[in-house]
């Protein structure tokens, strides 16, 4: 199952539609890293609303995506983690630390807008 990646202005939205295998997750990761350069995108949203399980591999891949996209000069936000999925992740000990998350697509877009405003005000922040 290939994850469709939509171009929305200066952002990319990866909209997961169904359960993904490890190979599908890695394909999505590579496609995002490539397309962020091709479209000169400023931000990436990964919508996981349709996922009913996020295990250690999925979390590690999402964390890798966020790090790779940051190294490519853009921001990433994961949106739509369902309440029971969040509960399972916490029980399992998966915190997805250092990765931005938002409730849904709308909040995710607002987050990226805010991030790009910050970037345009201070192109090279002295800290972090």
């Amino acid at each position: 199952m290939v994850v469709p990646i939509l171009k929305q202005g200066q952002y990319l939205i990866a909209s997961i539609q169904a359960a993904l295998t490890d190979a599908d997750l890695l394909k999505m990761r590579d496609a995002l890293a490539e397309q962020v350069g091709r479209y000169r995108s400023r931000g990436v949203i990964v919508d996981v609303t349709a996922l009913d399980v996020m295990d250690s591999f999925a979390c590690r891949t999402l964390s890798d995506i966020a790090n790779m996209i940051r190294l490519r000069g853009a921001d990433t936000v994961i949106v739509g983690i369902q309440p029971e999925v969040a509960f399972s992740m916490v029980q399992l000990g998966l915190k997805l630390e250092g990765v931005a998350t938002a409730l849904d697509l709308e909040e995710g877009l607002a987050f990226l807008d805010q991030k790009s405003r910050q970037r345009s005000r201070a192109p090279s922040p002295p800290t972090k």
Partner: protein
Amino acid sequence: MRPALPQNETRVAIGSDIDIVYARQKGRDLATRLGFSSSDGALIATAISEMARNVVLYARRGEIVLRPIERGGRRGIHIVAQDRGPGIRDLNLAMQDGYSTSGGLGVGLPGVRRLMDEFEIVSKNGEGTRVTVKKWLR
């Protein structure tokens, strides 16, 4: 009257990442049929995912066996992950949070134990590993 306890056992052969997805979907289906909440269903599916992942990672192939159980009027789900892989050299170490020999997150086995009500692991060097977990309906 509550529905009759489904008696059948489901065996899922595990040999690739596709089987991991299939096994956890089968587990969630059974959990739903047994009356588990959607949130417990997510816990069960996540545990199966980690158990099946360990099979693929360390033994390459094995199986997941799912079946309904009943004890003292309580119902639950019984899940076994078994393989004939190399076995786990140091079980105490493998059960430690953050320990991993595969470069993974090291949440696997201790994480699964937290998700389930009962947890048992048997492993013999060179002979394989069997992880048995149970979750009871509340």
